[in-house]
């Protein structure tokens, strides 16, 4: 690449707008040619000075207010606010997201977290189960020794099914469900007139003993893991009562009153 050609490509080079091969060819030439290198330095200095020193004129608050009031006036006369304003806002949001995603480094932060996605799945499942008649339970029984064996042959793990009747959380039943790309056990408990669903499946990775609490769409969601299982509890109960329920499950599962074991054969207890 000769000097003439390099000079013609200088702006594209400094603005990083050339294709990679050309960019590298120019770079190579600049490394070898002090004259062209000096020109590139001068031009870079100018760009740096413009970026840093040239005045960026920011809109004054009065201008923003003026535009806003003009827009409000149009909305008031045409009644289009409800139709257009949200779209304008969603545009702003989409631009913000695009900028966020486009920034590369923060790319992975842009999407909802795995737990957030799972929360949505759990809520959807919880809502659907109550919406469709007969969907809530595949096996209806308040007896954990009826519910627990029912899962044999349907899941590759034995979910802990606890009897919490004396604590005020009688068992309603259980069913198969599908969450986090795998079949899971959905256990249904009741507290007064409120249903609680407890989703259980084997913990694939790390135990996360910390209990997480969320409120979404009026539902309380608690989730945690122990050494063998992940647990997601959801209900329209108040947070305190669902917390009590979660603590009971956590304690009793940990106390070994049930021995959940992945891919286990039915235990003697199950057979009884």
């Amino acid at each position, binding site marked *: 690449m000769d000097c003439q050609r390099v*000079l*013609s490509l*200088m*702006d*594209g080079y400094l*603005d990083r*707008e050339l294709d990679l091969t050309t960019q590298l060819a120019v770079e190579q030439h600049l490394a070898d040619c002090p*004259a062209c290198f*000096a*020109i590139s*330095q*001068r*031009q*870079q*200095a*100018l*760009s*740096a*000075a*413009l*970026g840093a*020193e*040239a*005045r*960026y*004129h*920011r*809109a*004054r608050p*009065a*201008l*923003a207010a*003026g*535009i*806003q009031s*003009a*827009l409000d006036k*149009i909305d008031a006369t045409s009644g289009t606010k409800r139709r*257009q304003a949200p*779209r*304008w*806002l969603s*545009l*702003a949001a*989409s*631009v*913000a997201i695009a900028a966020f995603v486009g920034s590369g480094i923060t790319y992975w932060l842009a999407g909802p977290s795995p737990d957030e996605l799972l929360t949505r799945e759990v809520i959807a499942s919880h809502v659907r189960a109550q919406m469709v008649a007969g969907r809530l339970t595949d096996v209806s029984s308040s007896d954990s020794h009826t519910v627990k064996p029912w899962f044999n042959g349907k899941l590759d793990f034995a979910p802990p099914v606890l009897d919490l009747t004396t604590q005020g959380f009688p068992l309603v039943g259980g069913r198969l469900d599908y969450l986090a790309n795998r079949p899971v056990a959905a256990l249904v408990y009741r507290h007064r007139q409120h249903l609680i669903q407890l989703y259980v499946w084997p913990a694939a990775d790390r135990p996360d003993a910390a209990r997480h609490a969320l409120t979404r769409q009026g539902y309380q969601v608690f989730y945690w893991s122990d050494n063998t299982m992940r647990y997601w509890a959801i209900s329209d109960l108040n947070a305190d009562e669902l917390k009590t329920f979660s603590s009971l499950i956590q304690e009793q599962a940990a106390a070994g009153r049930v021995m959940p074991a992945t891919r286990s054969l039915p235990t003697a207890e199950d057979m009884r």
Partner: protein
Amino acid sequence: MLPHLDAAYNLARWLLRNDADADDVTQEACVRAYRFFDSFHGGNAKTWLLTIVRHACYTWLKQHRAEKSTMPFDEQQHSSNNSDPVDGHDPFSANPEALFLQDADRRLLHRCLEELPLEFRETLILRELEGLSYKEISTVMEVPIGTVMSRLARGRALLQQQFAANNVQEA
């Protein structure tokens, strides 16, 4: 509430070179952008808004006065290789990392940029102040990317030249 309002105002202010005019034109353009929002079918909202603002500025310039460049643009002069620094104080020969413009230099740079012919000025504003890519600039200015590239090259050369020349005069 209004995204890219600063970018819109900055472009208008540099094109019209007057606060009050830039206010008026930006307001009109933004209100129009909002009303015709249905014509926006996704894509880059910033370039979309800047395109509308630029149109409004050109319309305003056409209606109110012919854009007269206060700086004679000498094709012959600027197309020559201006790699030789003009004698005298030349801050751009410095290492860019160490570049520090004195107040006077900063004012001069500002004035030289403001006095560049319109098409070079707007290209430089979109690139250096707004940080748009060549492709985005070509969208806003509705010219091919090759034209963006040549306007940037010529605009920068001219700016350096004027800066150096004025610096010598003032020195």
